[in-house]
């Protein structure tokens, strides 16, 4: 057997690696690396031509340095040179370097493609594989363009070596996924499908991944693969444990290939051909039977490999959902695993059973395991296993066991891991609503939820209970009584106060007959919580109080007294103050009739999808919740009421006077949340001319290019991470600007010590003046706070002011620094002028330093309307019929600063066919001040 000694072949490399390992500090390491880089650079630059071995060694060292996390900016050419070496080891290092440090330098790509082409046609299987692996690892469009035609030929040619076929199949898969338009299978389809029959199991293993992907996209063209896959599977499943020699893994014949075959079959419905179907059912039965046989080895590898096939077979059985016998057998098998000593198996059984629960054939069989699953919820050590148990309980819940399951989930909530509480709360809330026969049980359950896990009860949940109580008059009295009792606890959660305030404000009259809950007692109880609550809850309570005045005239004097107190009517919070003033006035001026009309009981909410369900779907992502099953349940449930995204608080203020809600945010950041689960970010609500088409790119990139995205627009989302979203809205006039920043807390936990500071890098201090007031140091969970910045441009500037945000989240200090999108073009005044004027001025600004010019590749399409929108967003006037070439754009404007005004002319010349497939721009700016021309040119070159 081969054994490799340390770094054999390249002694210099081994020495270098040892040196690095012996470095005592980061500084020493950097010093050693810099020394090496200098050495390599001088070798590459030296007069003496390097031999292949040295080149290989140095390129390999560069690669090692790169993998340590350092930037490498040379050596690419030497790596490319290695590709044309005849020695395997040199070629291999060259290809490895290219694969790891892909460089889009077009010059190099051509050379690389050339080398690949040579290797592909070399008929040397080792070289062909290296070239194919490089294509598979890089997978760029240029490579697809160059090789997508050639690789299918290699794949199906009769004289291609097996190992090359394996690489070719997966290489093609990579190209197909990256550039499906370039990979045309047409004439090759049938021969590719027949690779399933190949004698070499490795070829089948590789080819089947390609076939599966192609089948998903073109199921009809590839459907002949079904019968081939069934017969291949059948041969493997029925073989003895040693028949397949090399492909037997711990006494299990070809486990990975079996899994891939079973997965391919999941792309199709059950086979229509009776014989094929019979054979497949036989396979599935054999797999289930084998699970019952005594193990051939005690090794975990044996049982894992066997069970990998079993779970894939069960997935296929569930996918078909047509064989009751197999479904029930699968369920029984999984039932055994629920108590297996291997945690992995218990986890997978719970997960798999979750999908079985939604099949009508196996739902009942799954339900028989309820006690085991409840036990798992209580005793499993790994939180992810408990989570699967909770998922399964949720999935197996129906009318017959709802009360038991909800009770178990509630009691589990008391000790549940923090990371899953919010989801558990949503699930309990949904089950309670869906299977409520009597609504007093539903109300009890939700109030229990708030009691046990109040912090995790989101707005949707408490909105929902209120909607249901409002829509069902048979439960209103009970709700009022229960909530009144719940509020008597010495410490109760703020969400309880919200629900209590709302329900008593609407239905307190239903329990007012009892002297123990007379109107004044109710009011005093609510008011005793007032001072402990946050502003939104206090606002809600004030609304409840005015409703009390209407319901119980005898409380009027007491409540007016409260509203009149300084702490209300002069409250520093504008919303509370306004409510206090308006309600006080309303109660003293309006007649009883008017009061009764204004403060009438809330009308029923329109029936819509439960907002909680929407929230859970959003949380879990599409497809994770058995949605169809839930919706069936909803139809069958019938008695669902209410719904909608409208929260009761906003509804309440709407039915009242014209109280502006503090949460009415300008950007609509929050209201967007419940419906659009897949929307990448709230930024898409805004007219965003720079958004990437198709929203395909990684969303994380938003943070980095946040600054540049605002050069030509004023509003949008500047920054977003998991905790915080910052929206921005700004307006400019002359040399002054005002910027509104909206800090949204995306979590349900308060941010403490929240503070922001603006700093001025470089000379900016003397060029720009930004004034602001500090923000409130506490930002509640889900809340948004606003900060206004007043900006004055004193003279032209190139740097951007920086905004530093600090806050504590769950004890950890968060520190974020962003560039504020204040750029010189914001202070543009557009200037309209005729062609003659324009060219006259253009000539006047002809000194070299007055002009700045850049030629650059288009990063976005050259759509005229988009370009115009960007140029207008820039702040200049877009001058029509000025440039003799109608393709070009010219603009004019004056930058207004406190110290001077700077006239600016701009010309943008698109060249749609610079080279085939490459679109270029030439951008020219002329102004009376060189720094302005240069800065604008730099900013704009990033925009098109």
């Amino acid at each position, binding site marked *: 057997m081969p054994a490799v000694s340390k770094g054999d072949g390249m002694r210099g490399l081994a020495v270098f690696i040892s040196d690095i390992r012996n470095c005592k500090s980061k500084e020493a390491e950097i010093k050693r690396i810099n020394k090496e880089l200098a050495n390599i650079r001088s070798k590459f630059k030296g007069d003496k031509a390097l031999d292949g071995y040295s080149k290989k060694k140095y390129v390999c060292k560069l690669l090692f340095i790169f993998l340590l996390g350092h930037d490498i900016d040379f050596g690419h050419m030497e790596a490319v040179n290695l590709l044309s070496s005849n020695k395997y080891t040199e070629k291999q290092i060259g290809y490895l370097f290219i694969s790891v440090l892909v460089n889009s330098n077009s010059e190099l790509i051509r050379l690389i493609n050339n080398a690949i082409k040579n290797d592909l046609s070399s008929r040397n299987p*080792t070289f062909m594989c290296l070239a194919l692996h490089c294509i598979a690892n890089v997978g760029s469009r240029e490579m697809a363009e160059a090789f997508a035609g050639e690789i299918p030929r290699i794949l199906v040619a009769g004289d291609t070596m097996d190992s090359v076929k394996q690489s070719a199949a997966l290489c093609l898969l990579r190209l197909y996924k990256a550039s499906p338009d370039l990979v045309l299978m047409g004439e090759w389809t049938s021969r590719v499908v027949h690779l399933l029959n190949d004698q070499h199991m490795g070829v089948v293993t590789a080819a089947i991944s390609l076939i599966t992907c192609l089948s998903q996209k073109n199921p009809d063209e590839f459907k002949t693969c079904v019968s081939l896959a069934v017969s291949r599977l059948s041969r493997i499943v029925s073989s003895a444990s040693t028949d397949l020699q090399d492909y037997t893994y711990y006494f299990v014949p070809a486990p990975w290939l079996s899994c891939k075959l079973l997965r391919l079959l999941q792309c199709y419905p059950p086979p229509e051909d009776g014989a094929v179907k019979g054979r497949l059912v036989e396979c599935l039965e054999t797999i289930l039977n084998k699970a019952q046989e005594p193990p051939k080895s005690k090794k975990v590898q044996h049982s894992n490999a066997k069970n990998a096939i079993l779970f894939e077979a069960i997935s296929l059985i569930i996918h078909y959902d047509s064989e009751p016998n197999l479904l029930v057998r699968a369920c029984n098998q999984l039932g055994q695993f629920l108590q297996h000593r291997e945690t992995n198996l218990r986890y997978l059984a719970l997960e798999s059973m979750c999908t079985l629960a939604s099949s009508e054939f196996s739902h009942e069989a799954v339900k028989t395991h309820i006690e085991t699953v409840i036990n798992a919820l209580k005793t499993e050590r790994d939180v992810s296993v408990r989570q699967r148990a909770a998922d399964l309980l949720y999935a197996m819940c129906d009318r017959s066991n709802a009360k038991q399951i909800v009770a178990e989930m509630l009691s589990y909530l008391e000790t549940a891991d923090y990371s899953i509480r919010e989801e558990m709360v949503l699930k309990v809330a949904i089950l309670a609503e869906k299977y409520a026969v009597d609504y007093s049980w539903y109300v009890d359950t939700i109030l229990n939820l708030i009691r046990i896990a109040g912090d995790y009860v989101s707005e949707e949940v408490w909105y929902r209970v209120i909607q249901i109580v409002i829509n069902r008059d048979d439960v209103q009295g009970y709700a009022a009584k229960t909530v009144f009792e719940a509020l008597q606890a010495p410490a109760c959660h703020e969400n309880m106060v919200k629900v209590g305030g709302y329900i008593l404000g609407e239905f307190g009259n239903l329990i007012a007959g009892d002297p123990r809950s007379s109107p004044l007692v109710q009011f005093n109880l609510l008011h005793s919580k007032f001072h402990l609550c946050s502003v939104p809850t206090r606002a809600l309570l004030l609304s409840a109080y005015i409703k009390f005045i209407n319901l119980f005239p005898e409380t009027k004097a007491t409540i007016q007294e409260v509203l009149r107190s300084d702490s209300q009517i002069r409250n520093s919070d504008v919303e509370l103050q306004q409510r206090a003033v308006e309600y006080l006035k309303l109660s003293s001026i309006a007649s009883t009739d008017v009061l009764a009309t204004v403060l009438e009981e809330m009308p029923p909410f329109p029936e819509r999808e439960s907002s909680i369900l929407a929230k859970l779907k959003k*949380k879990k992502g599409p497809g994770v919740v058995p949605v169809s099953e839930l919706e069936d349940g909803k139809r069958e449930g019938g008695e669902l009421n209410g719904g909608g995204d409208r929260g009761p608080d906003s509804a309440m203020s709407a039915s009242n006077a014209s109280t502006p809600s503090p949460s009415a945010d300008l950007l609509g950041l929050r209201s967007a949340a419940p419906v659009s689960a897949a929307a990448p970010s709230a930024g898409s609500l805004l007219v965003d001319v720079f958004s990437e088409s198709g929203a395909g790119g990684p969303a*994380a990139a938003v943070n980095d290019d946040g600054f540049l995205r605002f050069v030509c627009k004023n509003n949008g989302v500047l920054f977003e991470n998991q905790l915080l979203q910052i929206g921005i809205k700004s307006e400019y006039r002359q040399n002054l600007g005002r910027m509104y920043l909206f800090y949204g807390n995306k979590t*349900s936990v308060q941010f403490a010590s929240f503070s922001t500071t603006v700093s001025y890098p470089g000379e900016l201090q003397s060029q720009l003046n930004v004034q602001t007031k500090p923000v409130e140091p506490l930002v509640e969970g889900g809340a948004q706070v606003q900060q206004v910045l007043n900006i004055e441009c004193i003279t032209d500037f190139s740097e951007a002011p920086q905004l530093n945000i600090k806050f504590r989240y769950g004890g950890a200090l968060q520190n974020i620094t962003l560039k504020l999108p204040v750029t010189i073009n914001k202070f543009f005044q557009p200037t309209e002028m005729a062609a003659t004027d324009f060219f006259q001025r253009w000539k006047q600004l002809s000194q070299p330093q007055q002009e700045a010019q850049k030629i650059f590749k288009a990063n976005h399409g050259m759509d005229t309307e988009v370009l115009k929108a960007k140029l207008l967003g820039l702040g200049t006037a877009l001058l029509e019929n000025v440039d003799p070439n109608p393709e070009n754009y010219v603009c004019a404007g004056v930058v207004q600063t406190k110290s001077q005004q700077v006239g600016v002319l701009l010309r943008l010349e698109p060249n749609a066919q610079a080279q085939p497939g490459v679109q270029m721009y030439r951008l020219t700016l002329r102004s009376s001040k060189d720094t302005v021309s240069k800065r604008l040119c730099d900013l704009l070159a990033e925009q098109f």
Partner: protein
Amino acid sequence: MAVTSTQSSRTSGGGLWIPVESWPSIRFILIQNRAGKTRLAKWYMQFDDDEKQKLIEEVHAVVTVRDAKHTNFVEFRNFKIIYRRYAGLYFCICVDVTDNNLAYLEGIHNFVEVLNEYFHNVCELDLVFNFYKVYTVVDEMFLAGEIRETSQTKVLKQLLMLQSLE
């Protein structure tokens, strides 16, 4: 919306959003030691360098807190990590949530057995000094984010042949 757990970060704005069908099965393979030093990082989809560093750190944080009583699977962003610990090294493979956990768990073991044969009782230092050969082993067994070859005999025969070439 609480975004503290890995669970809920699935749909939050921080993760990656690429149409599912263009993803390879395996997003990446990582070998890390307990201190978090990376011994192999093989990426099967495009991540920028910052994102890679973030993923490496997150995987380390998620995996090292787990013990032998835990499963070998962790949900991670909108993927899952299948991992196994061998002495001081964690072998992690990041796949789609719908992929077959046990098949990839044994895929890791199969890979480790090959490394063990090839390096003759493999240890962490072998992976450091022969990092460029480890990539060759990976490419023989996994390519384009899919399993390429599973037979240890075939892989080792091929590696031996390559070893004999200059």
